[in-house]
């Protein structure tokens, strides 16, 4: 409870938080219901009285510097992904600067792949990415399509525990649905988001899923991810606020429905794997 009181104290001092979200290529990378992630962040901010704004930046639109605290980059169909990939190269420097100065980013599937060094198609063609993540993806004939359950990386667990404003965090695992044929391999120094408990994850071979670079996260978790993983949603919100306000304590929300959705999905995943 001490955390809540501190959070309220901050507000009493007259400080109002605000958070600016940038949704990258929402018109082209919108295929797998990833928009729920944006809805979850907005909902959870508004419930707490955090001023939240959302801007959409797509092909041929410049990425303005020094505005955004949190980026979201979802998955799309192959054709859209190649159009986006080309445009992203032009935004690479600005986006990297954002991440290096502490902005948060969540990327999923196609978005995650485009932030890596390159994507090599089944036919051997190399499509360059922007190399934010020291990783690469190789096209395969296996479509990895199933529920995906992971346990978050150890250091991330601690951070999620401290960001989620409830004394009894039911779980630090993440549950979602993966649908990809590209196999992602991480560079030696790049940390995964977590380890696979059920499903394929990055490549179906080394039990890793996703990647972490500073406050940028990549993964294959559709679902949408954040609504039924409210601890990770709050962790991202906290990280995005931290850049401007230092460590923050979020007010707790009633997440019973979200955790029911989480637990049921975990139960179905475990039962079928």
């Amino acid at each position, binding site marked *: 409870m001490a955390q809540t009181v501190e959070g309220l104290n901050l507000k009493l001092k007259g400080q109002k938080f605000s958070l600016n979200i940038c949704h990258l290529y929402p018109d082209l990378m919108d295929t797998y*219901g*990833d928009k729920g992630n944006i*809805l979850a962040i907005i909902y959870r901010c508004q419930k707490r009285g955090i001023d939240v704004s959302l801007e959409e930046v797509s092909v041929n639109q410049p990425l303005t510097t020094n505005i955004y605290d949190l980026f979201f980059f979802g998955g799309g169909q192959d054709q859209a992904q190649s159009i986006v990939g080309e445009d992203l190269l032009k935004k690479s420097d600005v986006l990297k600067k954002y991440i290096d100065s502490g902005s948060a980013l969540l990327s999923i599937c196609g978005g995650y792949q485009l932030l890596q060094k390159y994507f090599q198609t089944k036919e051997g063609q190399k499509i360059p990415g922007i190399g934010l993540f020291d990783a690469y993806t190789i096209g395969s004939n296996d479509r990895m399509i199933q529920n995906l359950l992971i346990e978050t990386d150890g250091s991330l667990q601690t951070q999620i525990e401290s960001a989620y404003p409830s004394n009894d965090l039911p779980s630090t695992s993440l549950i979602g649905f993966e649908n990809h044929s590209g196999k992602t391999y991480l560079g030696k120094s790049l940390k995964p988001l977590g380890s696979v408990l059920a499903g394929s994850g990055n490549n179906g071979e080394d039990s890793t899923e996703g990647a972490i670079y500073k406050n940028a996260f990549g993964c294959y978790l559709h*679902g949408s991810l954040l609504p039924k993983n409210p601890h990770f949603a709050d962790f991202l919100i906290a990280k995005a606020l931290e850049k401007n306000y230092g460590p923050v304590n979020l007010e707790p929300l009633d997440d019973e429905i979200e955790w029911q959705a989480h637990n049921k999905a975990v139960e179905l995943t475990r039962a079928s794997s």
Partner: protein
Amino acid sequence: MDLRQYLALAIGKLAQFMLKISGSGATAAPGLIALKIDPNLVKKLSSKIPQGSIIISGTNGKTTTARLIFDMLSKNYAIVHNRQGSNLMRGIASALISKANPTGNIKADLAVWEIDEATLPQAIDSTNPKTIVLLNLFRDQLDRYGEVEITRKKWQEALTNLPKETTLILNADDPGIASLSKITKAKMVTFGIKDHKISRGNQTGVLDIKSCPICQGKLDYKSYTLGHLGEYLCTKCGFKKPNLQLFASDIDQAKDFSTSMNLVLGAKKIKIKYKLPGIYNAYNILASAAVGQTYALSPKDIAKSTENFSPVFGRFQSVQIGNKSVLIFLIKNPTGANEVVKVLSQQSALNLLVILNDNFADGRDVSWIWDTKWEALSQKTKKLTISGTRAWDMATRLKYANFNLSKNNVYEQIETSIEAATTALSNNDTLVILPTYTALMPVEKSLSKYTKIVKWHKQ
């Protein structure tokens, strides 16, 4: 004598008999068994149907359209039709077996087949189609079919070698479907909507086709009717919505879920009224009218058959329980669900029961519920109940759409949810049920306890 075929038919018929006396609704099983014995059974039996087949495929609307066509043509033809639901090869085989005698003669002179999108190439190869109706392609169960473009490419390959006698009936408003007109020698009939009250300058749903299917250039839209359907032009290669041979104008949607429109068939125009809601059904009506015209029906006969059509179970059906009523709308993908949401947003004080399953036939991936704009119903809903294997995912979705939701109204068991929702209903009020595909049967079963409704596998 073809021993293999004889055996396949005999065992298929035996299986049908056994299922009939056990009262089972497993209509595809006899066909599945028979195809194991004779993989060419469908091809062999289809060759004996003098008028060949009419194939209907597309993501949304194929069941309703196939039934509209069946009703329209059944006066003039003895038709074999997979009315009982299975739209894979096994379902076709089952329907053929039930109309065949032991030596393989079929008591039908025309076949009407509703075909699953992924099965279309095989069905074209096996069922001797004279007419092929392609309705639309939307994102649907990406876990089963992969992307929209993958399905479209498979269709394109399957249509390339059609003989020029075949009639291809295409939804010209869908660029993915209209693009198929470029690759075949078949006769073409195009249909679409011309109604400035329906068309909007901005898209309000999801766009499953974002670039030109022919050259990948940018598609410019003058207007949208539904999802990515509308009036489009490729800025690079000039591909555009073809001229419409058949179209609807002055579409008027009434509060009682009935619709009227002016149907323009070439030089003729006729006003029709029918008991189906929504723009998505207007497309189904147009597709079936195009078939009616192809089979030489008069506009008057087409209008009459359409007016008398009664909806298919689950695709908008009304059931009476005493003085309470229940309406059922199947939902299965974001565009289909968005259209149902649009129809319902005309109502107020809704009693809503949403049932989300994640079985194989529903799609294991439930992320599509986040692409559906439920927000339009949050202020129109008086009471919300939620059910299904993924009831809590649905509850989370609707919570984030700002519905007034109590966790006590979430029931994983479908039967319990229907009992609770109908009990809470006031007299003369209506419960609207939105089930996904595999929830339909349990809904029917639960409702049949309260009222006598037509079993859908016996319709």
